[in-house]
């Protein structure tokens, strides 16, 4: 058994000797497995490589499909994000330009109603609890709402509004804390002249251990603080 041909001949005969029929156990077990694990339709099957595929090419069809899906996903997400941001930008009424010549029509047509917008801002109290304030702006002139810092000095007993000394379009609104400040809604009326803050009424506890809240509203134009009507109401 020294020759190469002898070895191969003997090896062939050696390998011929042996079973050619499988026992039933593994076959039955596999069939039972298939019955207990029905195959589900795989929507991403077309992205998966062929099991008999050779080494992946530098740019295989599967890779192309995967890149296309990723690109489409990014596009859809970007479109949704841009769309949601546009929804939040208030519709600022166009500035009224006075005509040099007197008009023959004394009463201009009413301007279309501005689209109401809403904002949501998180408030943090001294103990670290978070409360959410919803701002419903019917005037369409509120551009942004920011959470202000918690004030530990100059406590207020009612809702107050202060003009931002650095920016005439910004309005600082403060109100006293209550332990049950959990459902807060600030409404700005269509004329942007009345601000109503609603919150759930408290039976006990009230202002014990609390601190004031503050937010800053940014309007599309200068704010006349003196003419603002502010109300703090408690709903049951």
């Amino acid at each position, binding site marked *: 058994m020294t020759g190469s041909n002898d070895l191969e001949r003997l*090896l062939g005969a050696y390998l011929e000797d042996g079973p050619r029929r499988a026992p039933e156990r593994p076959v039955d077990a596999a069939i039972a497995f298939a019955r207990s694990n029905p195959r589900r339709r795989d929507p991403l099957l077309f992205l998966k490589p062929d099991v008999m595929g050779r080494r992946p090419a530098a740019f295989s069809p599967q890779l192309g499909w995967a890149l296309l899906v990723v690109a489409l996903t990014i596009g859809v997400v970007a479109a949704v994000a841009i769309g949601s941001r546009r929804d939040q930008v208030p519709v600022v009424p166009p500035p009224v330009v006075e005509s040099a010549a007197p008009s023959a029509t004394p009463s201009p047509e009413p301007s279309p109603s501005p689209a109401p917008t809403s904002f949501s801002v998180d408030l943090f109290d001294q103990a670290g609890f978070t409360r959410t304030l919803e701002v419903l702006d019917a005037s369409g002139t509120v551009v942004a709402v920011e959470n202000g810092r918690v004030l530990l000095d100059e406590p207020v007993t009612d809702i107050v509004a202060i003009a931002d000394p650095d920016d005439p379009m910004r309005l600082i609104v403060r109100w006293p804390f209550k332990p049950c400040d959990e459902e807060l809604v600030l409404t700005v009326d269509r004329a942007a002249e009345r601000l109503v803050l609603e919150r759930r009424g408290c039976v006990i506890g009230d202002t014990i251990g609390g601190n004031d809240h503050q937010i800053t509203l940014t309007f599309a134009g200068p704010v006349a603080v003196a003419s603002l009507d502010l109300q703090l109401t408690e709903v049951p």
Partner: protein
Amino acid sequence: MFRDIVERAAKGDQEAFASLAQSSSGRLYAVAYRILRDPYLAEDAVQQTLITIWNELPRLRDPDRFEAWSYRVVVRASTAEARRGKRAATALRLLPDDADRAPGPDEYGAVADRDRLDRGFRKLNADQRAVLVLHHYVGLTPVDMAEVLGIPVGTVGSRLHYATRALRAAIEADDRRPSAEERTA
């Protein structure tokens, strides 16, 4: 017909899969047994092969390549089973019906050669056994083996060469070992 069964099984038809498993199990078991030289390990390898086929069959784009793919799966399952080594080698020898018949003068040599070959073959690792089984038992060409194993044809050639050389070396090393009579003398 066979292509139709493969396609139906790929779509989740359990009856088609049962038919496919029964018709393929013989050749799969034959390969697994010859790689592992152990009936129990071969059973486990075949079971794992059939389960893999059920799970992965939808990813086989060309049903006509089922046979080649199934060889690939059974070779991988067998080499994995060999590495796992969860059972001691039982070396269950299936004797032919006429095993108790005394061999003739020419047959003594054949039996001795076969035993030497068996001892040498068992010393090879599972990868080496697999290429020898695919080539000398299944009868695949190096090109077909390259497709089955998913490796270049050149690598198939070198594996065959080294497996054959290792087998010859194992047999020659076995020949150099003193027999029991020589050791006691």
